[in-house]
């Protein structure tokens, strides 16, 4: 959800950057909030008002995003997440409750930004040196897995690359701090290739034997295809990460990161369903 998805430069909103006045600067939006809340969901008029309300309060979201901007996440990402929080706040705000909009919106937006940080919990800053080493390790692991018939150990990798074991351990640890997408996301993979489809068929059969399928199935279905494939092959086909890496055509480290991230998403999703 970055602005770069479309290849355009991130659009700042310079016209909104003027100094903020008193709290009263959003007062003129209050009647519109009430009107918005009174309209039936989905009505064109409500959508138009919603748009106007989100735009009108955008400085609030930007202000909150900036408060979090020195923690290693790109500022555009934070603004998008904060804007998402603002949209939720506009959608859910109920003037009947008597609280004013800002008292409701600020915690909602802040919560959304915090949640983003939690979801990205492993994406701390990683020194360039370790990123480079990671690329080396990643490809060496693939080769060694082929020769050994299993994944190598950290010591074997270090020996193979004539590197100190401590450097290898450090780089491996850093790879868990990577945000998927930084390194190997661009590599081509094709979950529809013949063998993977066959394997998935068997995994699907195993899935049918698991309880709670009702709550799990929609979550799995909502996953991007590659993530779903990897989850199915690991947990319903019992393949190792190295085997999955070879089958899907990405590195073991990438499989590892995708698995960890997807499990966390599934856990959140299942947790909410159970409540």
């Amino acid at each position, binding site marked *: 959800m970055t602005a770069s998805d479309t290849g355009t430069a991130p659009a700042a909103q310079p016209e909104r950057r003027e100094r903020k006045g008193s709290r009263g600067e959003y007062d003129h939006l209050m009647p519109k909030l009430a009107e918005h809340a009174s309209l039936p969901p989905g009505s064109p008029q409500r959508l138009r008002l919603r748009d106007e309300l989100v735009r009108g309060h955008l400085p609030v979201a930007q202000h909150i995003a900036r408060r979090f901007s020195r923690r290693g996440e790109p500022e555009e990402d934070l603004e998008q997440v904060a804007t998402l929080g603002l949209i939720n706040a506009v959608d859910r705000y109920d003037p009947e409750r008597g609280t004013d909009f800002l008292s409701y919106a600020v915690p909602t937006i802040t919560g959304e930004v915090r949640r983003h940080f*939690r979801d990205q*919990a*492993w994406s701390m800053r990683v020194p360039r040196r370790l990123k480079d080493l990671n690329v080396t390790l990643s490809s060496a*692991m693939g080769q060694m897995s082929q020769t050994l018939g*299993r*994944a*190598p*150990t*950290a*010591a074997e*990798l270090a020996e193979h690359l004539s590197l100190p074991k401590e450097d290898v*351990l450090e780089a*491996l*640890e850093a790879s*868990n701090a990577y945000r998927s997408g930084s390194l190997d996301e661009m590599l081509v993979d094709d979950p529809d290739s013949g063998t993977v489809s066959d394997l998935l068929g068997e995994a699907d059969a195993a899935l049918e034997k*698991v*309880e*709670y399928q009702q709550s*799990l199935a929609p979550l799995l279905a909502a996953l991007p295809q590659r993530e779903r494939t990897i989850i199915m092959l*690991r*947990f319903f086909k*019992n393949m*190792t*990460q*190295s085997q999955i890496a070879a089958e899907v055509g990405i590195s*073991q480290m990438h499989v*590892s990161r995708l*698995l*960890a991230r997807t*499990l*966390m998403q*599934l*856990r959140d999703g*299942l*947790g909410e369903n159970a409540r």
Partner: protein
Amino acid sequence: MARPDAIPPDLEEPPEDVEVRVPATPRAVVTMRTVAADLAARAEFTLDAVADLRMAVDEACSSLVSLARPDTKLTCTFILDEERMTVTATVSTFGPERLPTDSFGWRVLTTLADDVRMLSATGDRNGDPFRLTLRLSVRRLGTVLS
């Protein structure tokens, strides 16, 4: 100023038995999985096994923490032997809590680790709290494939 003694180079072996205690909160779980993975990587586990262990500890601790009483601790013991690492994770709970064993989470645990056991203890009559423990082990060479 006295210099500390140099660490003998042959002290590469990790301690055999490591215990870590953190607040029983979701954000502390990362510490546990990181310790587990580091111990295993140093102990010559294959990197598949290290990754599996990391995820298993994450899953076990996350599930336990969701049942823990507020302001209590999550304790993990990591024991290494020739073939495997055995992890014991414990929290205090309000009552005789259990984790569902027909869930996806359990499936994840039992795929990643061997010998997954759930143990619960009612404290003695001094009013000690209930405890819920998960024990699991991961083999140095990873899952043995059929």
